């Protein structure tokens, strides 16, 4: 039984190995492979076939999400948000080939090791809040919805690891501007309503609550920066809608 399954896998569309690449993550929807492509460090995101899904639905969803992801990655750049460069979008192999971001850590790891359960980190919290708040604001200002905003889907480069580094005098060696890179636009879409943006914020809030419940000030601060940097006309609607969505969640009537 075990063997039969392994063979079936191999002959199917799913790839467990890509020559010259090593698997770095096996997610719920895709596998990530790291290697070199066209002479540059690259990441391959391959969406595997979901056998539980009707094949037509699976094909359609994969194609839509691949398109949505690639489109959003490019639009995000134009909005002034750093994202990986695209090397190839391949519907036949259900893959996106993109730039591998070197020397970066996920925001989740950054918070876990530099902020959680640490003292005197108000400044670092503000740093994170500004980075994230402004990035999301820039996306929303161009009607881009990320769809899965979590701290695992954000990378940080050139970051301070202590209060001193953040506030201390900035010289050549000590200039931690910070760069945030948004990744995994797998559920992203462009063209959106105030409600879509509100839900995007709500998803972020929920993700922060579940992953970083020990840093409760993070989301409120982010929201402040979001409002500061958001230039879209529907900003007030978005905030009002967000409160509505949040209230709906907390007070939803749940019958049987």
């Amino acid at each position, binding site marked *: 039984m075990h063997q039969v399954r392994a063979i079936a896998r191999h002959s199917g569309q799913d790839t467990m190995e890509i020559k010259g690449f090593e698997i770095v993550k096996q997610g719920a929807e895709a596998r990530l492979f790291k290697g070199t492509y066209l*002479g540059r460090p690259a990441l391959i995101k391959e969406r595997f076939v979901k056998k539980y899904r009707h094949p037509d639905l699976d094909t359609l969803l994969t194609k839509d999400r691949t398109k949505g992801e*690639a489109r959003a990655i490019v639009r995000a750049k134009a909005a*002034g948000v750093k*994202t990986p460069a695209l*090397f*190839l979008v*391949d519907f*036949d192999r259900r893959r996106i080939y993109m730039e591998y971001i070197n020397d970066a850590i996920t925001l989740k790891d950054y918070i876990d090791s530099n902020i959680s359960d640490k003292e005197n980190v108000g400044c670092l919290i503000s740093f994170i809040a500004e980075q994230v708040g402004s990035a999301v604001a820039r996306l929303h200002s161009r009607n881009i919805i990320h769809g899965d905003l979590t701290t695992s889907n954000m990378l940080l480069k050139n970051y301070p690891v202590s209060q001193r580094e953040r506030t201390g005098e900035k010289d050549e060696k000590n200039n931690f501007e910070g760069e945030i890179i948004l990744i995994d636009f797998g559920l992203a879409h462009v063209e959106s309503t105030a409600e879509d943006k509100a839900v995007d914020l709500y998803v972020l809030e929920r993700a922060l609550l579940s992953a970083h419940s020990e840093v409760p000030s993070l989301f409120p601060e982010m929201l402040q920066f979001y409002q500061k940097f958001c230039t879209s006309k529907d900003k007030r609607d978005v905030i009002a809608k967000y409160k509505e969505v949040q209230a709906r969640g907390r007070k939803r009537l749940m019958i049987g």
Partner: protein
Amino acid sequence: MESCTVQLDEDTGKFITLYLFINVENTEEIRKKLISGELQCCVMKAGLVVDLFQVIVAANKAVVNEKFGKLTTRTIFTEILFNMSLSKNITQSLVKFGIDDKEKNIIVGIIHGSDNTEAMAKDSLAAIKGERVSIGRLKEITDTSVVKKIYKVDESELKVSSLVDCVVSKMNTKDFASY
């Protein structure tokens, strides 16, 4: 560096080798030979290339599409020019990135397997009357402001990405996004 060879997608088994020529005198003749199929290579305006990676990405998409039987244009070489353009119009794309009779600075791209570069390159390169120079001199030739205009790259984008990364990312999404 006289030329540059890069392996394209592993599954295609293809490579691309690129050459840079300046002061080319017989562009009209080259163009005719390309159209007749006598010359088996891709020739483009060097001024619109910001980095060879731009050509490599276009060529890679072409060989991958060829493998899956999905070429939009007639040959792999016209497909490279088409892939470089953000337009979905084939003629416009070929006119934009391909050479016209007055062009002086050109990039020649040859697609080959792992071992037959020399033979394939020989005929093509012999047909070009011009000065073959180091690839490194491309940056003197690139017309950055025209590139930015063609690919609609604005300053906010360049704060978070290099020009070539903006360009290739847009090229790769042209089939399903409008710019």
